[in-house]
């Protein structure tokens, strides 16, 4: 089980309290009724699915219930950082040096 740092509660909590909510920083096109089928599919269905760092949304469902974003390594499942919704993609080199609670990893193995 992952340990996840909620940037609103400012606390590291077990994964059971959270819901994964898919890739982050996907912006819904404002003119969604006018865009082509391909453009809609690219927004709605197509995903980066990276092997490495993924930017993703989480929701602290059984806590503050708020959505936030995280950067996580999909090979080790370690969180590099978590940050509030609406903030830009973090500078991960900077994050690694900022001593952000990024220890979150696997437990219960």
């Amino acid at each position: 089980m992952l340990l996840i740092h909620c940037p609103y509660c400012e606390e590291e909590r077990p994964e059971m309290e959270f819901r994964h909510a898919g890739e982050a920083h996907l912006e819904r096109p404002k003119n969604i009724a006018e865009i082509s089928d391909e453009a809609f599919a690219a927004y709605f269905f197509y995903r980066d699915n990276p092997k490495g760092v993924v930017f993703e949304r989480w929701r602290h469902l059984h806590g503050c219930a708020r959505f936030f974003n995280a950067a996580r390594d999909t090979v080790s499942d370690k969180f590099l950082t978590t940050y509030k919704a609406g903030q830009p993609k973090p500078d991960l080199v900077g994050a690694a040096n900022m001593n952000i609670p990024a220890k979150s990893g696997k437990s219960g193995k």
Partner: protein
Amino acid sequence: MRRYSGFALVREAMRGHKGWGQQWSSPEPKKEYDVIIVGAGGHGLATAYYLAKEHGITNIAVLEKGWLGGGNTGRNTTIIRSNYLYDESAGLYDHAVKLWENLSQDLNYNVMYSPRGVMMLAHNVHDVQVFKRHIHANRLNGVDNEWLTPEAAKEYCPPLNISQSARYPVMGAALQRRGGTARHDAVAWGYARAASDRGVHVIQNCEVTGVRRGGNGQVTGVETSRGFIGAKKVGVVAAGHTSVIMEMADVRMPLESFPLQALVSEPVKPCFPCVVMSNTVHAYISQSDKGELVIGAGTDQYTSYSQTGGLHIIQHTLDAICEMFPMFTRMKMLRSWGGIVDVTPDRSPIIAKTPVSGLYVNCGWGTGGFKATPGSGHVFAHTIANDNPHRINTAYTIERFNSGRLIDEAAAAAVAH
């Protein structure tokens, strides 16, 4: 290839089993092939086999990063069934079941296909209605599936707890008698041996690191950990790593990769006669011929390539198993593991040409690809050989996500299946 038979067994027994030889060859890669298949799992090896057998293309290499059948082919719960809701799915999965029925003879390799019946439990009114709808849809498609009362379900599978005091009482079940299991490793080995016999090169420990394309965008080969290998056509059958391989060819996929776990118990005497699945409480269970209970859990909620998942996922499944089969509450679990499954938005696979000329993809099998192994390889081979899909996989394009013409088994099954 030395044919396996009762006679061969007796002869080798007399000679101290010294004459069996290698089951498949391990050649050095050639400079160029007609077709390269990326991924030597069941689907990839089956594709190579049917290309050689039915389309006369034998200048083929199957490239594998690790060892043959070491990915999801060796990590699944070996369930075979074809009782899917939609016409397209019934066509594809039942095509596979028909091939399973004669696969051991076809490959001259015992894949231990055992049609012992797959029973899917209904625990609430919604389940009952959905399963009955499935049964009627299946029967219209010529796929066997029948409704059992709780008592009939218990008669078919005596360890089942049908007591009304169960947390989620069994309200009935859908039974597909032609469903069952097969020996997953034997499927990979049997296809590898039969393909190798027809001249296919199965090359293990050869990781694809790039896809090379010519001036007109056409695929010209792949970069690998053992150097460049040229190819006129490349078929990607890389399961959880499909997005990674396809990105090398600049093709973005409607896929996400999740860890899916399974586990086995200590081996015990035969006590469990069929396969039981419950989508609602989320548990899959059967007993292997070795005697282990083979139990499938759900996917983790986050994308990952780690081939491991959270313990709470397994725990959740075992809670359900103990509730449904109280006699297993004291069984010890022996091993658990994870595989990485590539999931499409509609939970149906993609078996198709891609926007890149000469590049084909067979992916998106999600949590239930093993059952389709022979059918998947068969229609994918047709697609590669003819540069056009087989009648059965016409609908399984990538473009269905643009047109919206989905094969929405995700909604039909209400879980990843």
